[in-house]
């Protein structure tokens, strides 16, 4: 059996999500959308998959390779724009052959089986889709997430303080640390590598990868994407200026720093413009 997956291109309404990674590669509950779909297709018995990409094909190739991870043969085709299902059918009908139906061609804008939750139309819809997918996020071929309490999932090496209060449904990603006396309320989705400090509260919210939720910070009906805070109910967004309230813990951009000197500076200051200030400061102090 063969299948075609169309990776979504740019979506201007979801600008904050596509800042660093294309929509198909962005991590959702630990794995990206394309990985969930490949796993779903592998479980359904599909052997060959064609991926149509128009946005960052190199990142997608790094992610899926040749499909050996799922036992599939993946063919990555670069398109100049996002095709619709009908256009893909016309253009690639030779690959998928005469037995293809419209079921064999999927646009990756929803989770497998959850067509009623389109992900890329609004932030509220995106959050609702994630919440609906939560019980199925641990696909049969996935290692890591375990249900530590009914309705609360935790990935590998997640550390929860004994005085923290957890209420289902919730998701704690890999290496997440939940501080003392914090309240991870119903509907909290915390991605890999995030730190939730003491007395914080996360309610019906999504915390992106490698984000620090500072002491005493309350997140309600929000998406915390680094230092950008979005309210998915009202659609408002704000850049949090204070790093100790909400900030990104790692530099998100895929570009690597040039030399070890820059890397040390980045490690100590976390910010490119601060790198330069740091070194100027050091040199000035050395000299005088």
């Amino acid at each position, binding site marked *: 059996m063969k299948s075609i997956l169309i990776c979504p291109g740019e979506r201007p309404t979801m600008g904050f999500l596509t800042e660093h990674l294309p929509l198909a590669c962005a991590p959702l509950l630990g794995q990206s959308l394309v990985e969930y779909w490949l796993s779903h297709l592998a479980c359904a018995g599909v052997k060959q998959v064609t991926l149509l990409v128009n946005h960052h094909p190199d990142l997608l190739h790094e992610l899926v390779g040749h499909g*050996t991870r799922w036992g599939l043969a993946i063919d990555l085709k670069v398109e100049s724009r996002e095709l619709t299902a009908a256009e893909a059918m016309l253009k690639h009908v030779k690959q998928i052959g005469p037995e293809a139906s419209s079921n064999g061609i999927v646009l990756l804008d929803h989770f497998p089986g959850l067509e009623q939750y389109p992900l890329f139309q609004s932030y509220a819809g995106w959050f609702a889709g994630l919440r609906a997918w939560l019980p199925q996020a641990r696909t049969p071929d996935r*290692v*890591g997430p375990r249900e530590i309490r009914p309705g609360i999932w935790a990935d590998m090496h997640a550390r929860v303080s004994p005085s923290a209060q957890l209420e289902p449904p919730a998701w704690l990603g890999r290496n997440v640390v939940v501080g003392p006396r914090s309240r991870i309320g119903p509907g909290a989705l915390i991605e890999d*590598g995030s*730190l939730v400090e003491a007395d914080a509260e996360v309610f019906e919210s999504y915390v992106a990868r*490698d984000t620090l939720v500072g002491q005493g910070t309350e997140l309600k009906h929000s998406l915390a994407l680094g230092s950008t805070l979005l309210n998915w109910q009202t659609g408002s967004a704000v850049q949090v200026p*204070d*790093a100790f309230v909400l900030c990104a813990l790692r530099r998100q951009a895929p570009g690597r720093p040039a030399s070890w000197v820059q890397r040390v500076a980045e490690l*100590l200051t976390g910010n490119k413009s601060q790198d330069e200030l740091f070194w100027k400061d050091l040199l000035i102090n050395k000299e005088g």
Partner: protein
Amino acid sequence: MNDEIFAWLARRYLTARSPFGRWLLNLHVQQQRLRARWLAGGADGLKRAFDTLSSGVLLLILSPLFLLIGLLVKLEDGGPVFFAQTRVGRFGREFQMYKIRSMCLDAEQRLKDLLADNHHREGITFKIKDDPRITRVGKWLRKFSFDELPQLYNVLIGDMSLVGPRPPVPREVSLYAPAHRRRLAIKPGITCIWQISGRSEIDFSGQVRLDVNYIESQSLWTDLKILARTIPAVLSGKGAC
């Protein structure tokens, strides 16, 4: 209650009013950044460093043993000492696993004769008792698992790790169900965790579950404990994976 909260908030955020206070708070953020970096990559980096260091040291220490074994194998039938097998590593990536030859030179032909003679158990894996293709030196090598020693080189170059599930052959992997593929989520290892948990009694899904348990609870400490239990098993000649 509200007074307490107000007092706490004031104490906490009043530090942010002065530049020095903000500097202190930012220092805390930098400390959390370093901590996040360590949590994210520390365990894997440590495992890799331990693997590289110990495999390098072991290869150096055991080089006289390698020379001796090479001589013995060459003296027996004059054939090659090492041979490479294609095995499946992390996430389905195939690599060449090196072993010391313990079977006679026409092992492939004899395999076909044996397959007609069905001694194997049902399932995906394939092992025969009293295999007539094994040479005399090979039998002694397998008893003490010396034929697995060249895998230290695989550990050095990063294909394998010291501790982990044994690498399967591509033929087996093509028959895996999606749930079985979970055991390909980490680098395969030389020491097999099954032999300390009684492998021959459980079926394949049980083995996969053991492997997944290992992957989810893996840390340097558990690896060291497994190594400590494997070495006596190997030296006593019981374990052969």
